[in-house]
């Protein structure tokens, strides 16, 4: 029992509820948002240390023992993701101060952001599959409102589609849980893992697993990504940054959990399927990214490529590949937030996202330009920046596993190929936006980047730290991968006193 485990969910929840009372008091809401996110990050860091030294931490809610009550579990994977979420949300809220605008601030932007983080953190923490559904819904409902907040024509159009597709996938989630409950009669994830292992992952359970795969693929934009580019390009940049950095990643986290903890007995079916979906996602996302001519769409398609690459690490399913996938997941959360924030700064200056309306920004905004270049190189996987380590590990393992099954050669090759597409699509923004003739003189600019570059600079620093300090972070990620690949560690921590 460790009561700290519940705090990453409780702090933003209380802060959000408190803020609702003071709708008009924007200053208070700003301060409270920052305090809440910084506190959450600190608690997450404390939990990270604890997990590293003492193993998995759990709390039985209401004092009910594990398979009967709901448990919150922090293992290394959750702890790392909680820390990253905390940092990214803090920096995004700093960026929001100068970019989100009075109207949205007055209509519950900050409380909604808190509730979104409640859902995200809850999904990372919970050890109960129905509770995972509930946390997903908390997160999604906040995201629906954030997406439509402001009520422009484009936002409303895209929100309708986004809500409909997510409602449908949530219904499928409930159906999948019903099937799973009918077969194994439990909802606790550790208990599920035990029961599935005892029963053997028979044909029916594999079908249920694929049901979950469809549900989480819709949430994570793995192959079923058709809703993403429209939805992520409609809201203001800071909301898009939060979505791109956190929402799809929660789906990826759920896929990691399901296919390492519960349904890991038939990798020749489920993980091969994951591999095929990952490969298709990378290719189609990449083609989408190079075809677009608007910053917002290019960045949205880059989110999709990242999802495909992370899942290909899970599909290869060797210790090193999983380490690579977790590493790349953390890198991707920080860098996608950075990319959307920088894109937002560019759009603030130019007043639109269209590439042909910009040019020569580097003359008046050198810092912005260089940070964008660093983000680009980092996502393309150039050493010593943060994308390199994850890419190297995943592709190396893909090639190594290609010896037993030639289709993994394809996966590794497509992974490399997707890096080129990422590089090309982002350099297109860089060349069009920053090189060439300066189209806008300083007094013609539509908005100022005052206060927008500080959070971006901090994210760049994190990106460089993740790359240069890889040696220092590696033990943590290795522990995460070890506990993911040995479900017994997780099961013992949760059900140790019962079994």
């Amino acid at each position, binding site marked *: 029992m460790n009561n700290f485990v519940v705090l990453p969910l409780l702090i933003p929840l209380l802060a959000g509820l408190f803020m609702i009372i003071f709708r008009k008091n924007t200053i208070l809401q700003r301060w409270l948002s920052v305090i809440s996110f910084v506190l959450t990050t600190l608690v997450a860091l404390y939990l990270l240390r604890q997990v590293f030294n003492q193993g998995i931490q759990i709390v039985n809610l209401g004092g009910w023992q594990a398979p009967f009550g709901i448990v919150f579990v922090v293992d290394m994977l959750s702890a790392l993701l909680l820390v990253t979420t905390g940092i990214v949300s803090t920096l995004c809220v700093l960026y929001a101060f100068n970019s989100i605008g009075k109207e949205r601030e007055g209509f519950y932007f900050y409380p909604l952001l808190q509730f979104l983080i409640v859902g995200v953190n809850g999904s990372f923490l919970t050890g109960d599959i129905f509770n995972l559904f509930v946390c997903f819904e908390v997160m999604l409902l906040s995201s629906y409102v954030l997406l439509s907040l402001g009520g422009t024509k484009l936002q409303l159009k895209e929100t309708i589609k986004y809500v409909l597709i997510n409602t449908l996938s949530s*219904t499928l989630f409930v159906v999948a849980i019903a099937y799973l409950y009918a077969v194994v009669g439990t909802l606790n994830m550790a208990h599920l893992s035990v029961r599935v292992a005892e029963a053997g992952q028979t044909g029916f359970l594999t079908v249920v697993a694929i049901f979950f795969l469809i549900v989480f693929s819709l949430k994570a934009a793995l192959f079923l990504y058709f809703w993403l580019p429209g939805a992520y390009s409609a809201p203001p940049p800071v909301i898009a940054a939060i979505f791109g950095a956190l929402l799809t990643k929660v789906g990826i986290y759920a896929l990691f959990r399901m296919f390492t903890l519960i349904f890991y007995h038939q990798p020749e079916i489920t993980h091969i399927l994951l591999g095929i979906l990952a490969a298709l996602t990378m290719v189609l996302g990449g083609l989408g990214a190079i075809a677009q001519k608007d910053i917002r769409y290019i960045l949205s398609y880059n989110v999709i490529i990242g999802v495909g690459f992370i899942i290909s690490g899970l599909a290869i399913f060797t210790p090193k590949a999983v380490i690579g996938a977790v590493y790349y997941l953390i890198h991707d959360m920080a860098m996608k937030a950075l990319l959307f924030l920088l894109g937002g700064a560019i759009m603030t200056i130019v007043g639109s996202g269209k590439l042909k309306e910009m040019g020569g920004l580097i003359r008046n905004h050198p810092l912005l330009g260089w940070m964008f270049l660093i983000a680009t190189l980092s996502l393309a996987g150039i050493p010593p920046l943060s994308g390199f380590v994850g890419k190297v590990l995943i592709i190396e393992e893909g090639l190594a596993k290609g010896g037993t099954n030639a289709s993994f050669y394809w996966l590794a090759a497509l992974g490399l190929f997707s890096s080129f597409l990422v590089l090309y699509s982002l350099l297109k923004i860089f060349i069009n936006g920053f090189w060439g003739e300066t189209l806008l003189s300083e007094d013609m600019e539509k908005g100022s980047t005052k206060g927008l570059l500080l959070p971006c600079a901090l994210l760049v620093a994190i990106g460089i730290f993740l790359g240069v300090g890889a040696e220092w972070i590696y033990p943590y990620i290795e522990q995460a991968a070890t506990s993911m690949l040995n479900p017994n560690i997780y099961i013992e921590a949760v059900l140790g006193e019962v079994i």
Partner: protein
Amino acid sequence: METLMSIIVGILFAIGMYLILSKSLLRIILGTSVIAHGSHLLIITMGGLKTGGPALLGKHFTTFVDPIPQALILTSIVINFAITAFLLVLAYRSYQVVGTENMERLRGNDNE
């Protein structure tokens, strides 16, 4: 009894799917609602249908019903209620702003 319920669930899903595939936004929202009800019925069917037993464990009861599916349904209904309410408001607002509730005219964006 379970067979009958399964068939009903199937019919509800079919109706919901048909409504979702139509072009009117209001029908689509009703469709998601019908499908959600189908999934609620599915949960209770999957928990096993027994007549005459309460959802409690007690010494003087010989039969009892599994309480977990009922707890799940309750949660799921509440969530579905909230989302349907939100969707209806959203649909009304977008009807005011965009001026149509026909999905054909809601497609695309300024970019194309």
